[in-house]
């Protein structure tokens, strides 16, 4: 069952070529390839749909800059310390006690204090960019309310007046080049909302509403995750993020509001007959349950089970037969008592919803 779980993108990145080229002779090449393998775990996390170091949004770009600045500074200091270490170990020169004392004072006390002060100031100065705050954010800015629930995401698009325009789940769509305010909530335990390519994470705390504003700059499909342990299936609580061109976004909003699940009467009948409607909503039908994820236009989603499975009939069928086997602790009952033909039929109905 692990093999078909969606994983984050793990493709090796650009520097492959450069590293290999460094080795001139055969031996060097082998060494270079070996070091490339050693570097793999670090390099794969540098790019892709879920990397804070491959930013597609303003806040994330600042976070990445901060990271690389600190990395560079840390590398220089590390090299200096290691250099001193070699110097101390190799050369047996005698230094006066006074000089040694000076080195400790300047190199061991003054230098680190000044460097830390500079780093702290830089990071604190970046803070308002990384966590921008806008007075009266309700006026004018687009708002999306996201609720973290064990182990999925309830997503509500609010209209200009702050009323819920429609609800969906496990997928967030944002327009490119426009700032969006996320209202983050939780009914059960603490979750944390994190779209690494767009910005920093923010906790979702029961009884509170936290605000996070993000601005996507590059259109694309990304991945968000829950970044605070929230139960057995915490690691299987992810979502898809689509950053879309503004006109596509508007078109999608309109289409999504008009979406309904009545085209496939037979599938819908089975869905209703087996009680799915107690927890799930499919717009335009009798199914108006609010306990589980809204399934309107479910077929459009990039994944099923909150970023856990590919959104294909066989996987969805497997999920709804026994959700707890795929996501331990999931709050949906199993349906193993239904004939497989029927669960397959329902899965086909759901993946066909647009």
């Amino acid at each position, binding site marked *: 069952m692990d093999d078909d779980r969606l994983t984050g993108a793990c493709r090796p990145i650009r520097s492959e070529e450069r590293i290999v080229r460094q080795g001139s002779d055969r031996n060097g090449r082998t060494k270079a390839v070996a070091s490339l393998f050693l570097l793999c775990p670090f390099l794969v996390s540098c790019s892709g749909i879920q990397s804070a170091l491959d930013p597609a949004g303003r806040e994330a770009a600042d976070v990445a800059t901060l990271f690389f600045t600190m990395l560079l500074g840390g590398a220089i200091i590390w090299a200096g310390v290691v250099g001193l270490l070699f110097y101390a170990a190799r050369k047996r020169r005698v230094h006066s006690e006074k000089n040694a004392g000076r080195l400790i004072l300047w190199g061991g*006390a003054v230098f680190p*204090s000044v460097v*830390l*002060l500079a780093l*702290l*100031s830089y990071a*604190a*100065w970046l*803070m*308002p960019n990384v*966590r921008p*705050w806008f*007075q009266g954010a309700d006026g004018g800015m687009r708002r999306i309310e996201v609720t973290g629930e064990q182990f999925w995401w309830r997503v509500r698009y609010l209209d200009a007046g702050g009323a819920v325009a429609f609800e969906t789940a496990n997928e967030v769509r944002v327009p490119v080049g426009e700032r969006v305010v996320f209202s983050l909530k939780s009914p059960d335990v603490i979750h944390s909302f994190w779209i690494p390519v767009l910005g920093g994470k923010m906790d979702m705390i029961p009884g509170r509403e936290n*605000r996070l504003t993000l601005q996507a700059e590059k259109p694309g499909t990304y991945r968000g995750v829950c970044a605070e342990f929230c139960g057995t299936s915490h690691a299987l609580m992810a979502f898809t993020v689509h950053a879309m061109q503004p006109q596509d976004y508007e078109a999608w909003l309109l289409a999504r509001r008009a979406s309904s699940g009545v085209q496939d009467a037979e599938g819908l009948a089975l869905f209703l007959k087996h009680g799915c409607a107690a927890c799930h909503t499919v717009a335009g039908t009798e199914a108006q349950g609010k306990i589980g994820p809204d399934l309107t236009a479910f077929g459009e989603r990039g994944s099923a089970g909150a970023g856990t499975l590919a959104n294909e009939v066989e996987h969805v069928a497997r999920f709804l037969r026994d959700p707890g086997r795929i996501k331990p602790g999931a709050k949906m009952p199993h349906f193993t008592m239904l004939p497989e033909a029927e669960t397959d039929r329902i899965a086909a109905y759901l993946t066909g919803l647009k």
Partner: protein
Amino acid sequence: MKSFIPREVETLWTLFTAPVVWALHFAACYATVAVFCAKRLPASFSFDSVRIVLFVVTLMALGVIVFAAWLAWRQWGFGDDDPPHNEPTRDSRLLFQGFATLLLSGLSFLAVVYAAVPLMFIAECQP
């Protein structure tokens, strides 16, 4: 001045002066901003006023720490003698204590400055 400051202070308490000032300054900064943001009262009091008040508090804290450091420096004999002061004598103990207090004052000074840096950059209370 001379009449105010005793010629010699011989107690372990001077050792803790600077760290205690650091702790109080830290608590004052965090509590003030937190209470201000939670209550938002009175409305005429802006966040910049909080910033200025805490800036003054910071200067006062630094002043006390510098004074404690000066006392310690004096006790250490203004650096006449080099550490380690590890003889089992009263003199050595006094010098050691003076030196330790001086170092702690330096640490506390830095810590107070670091705690105050974010004050300059925090934009506003976030609800």
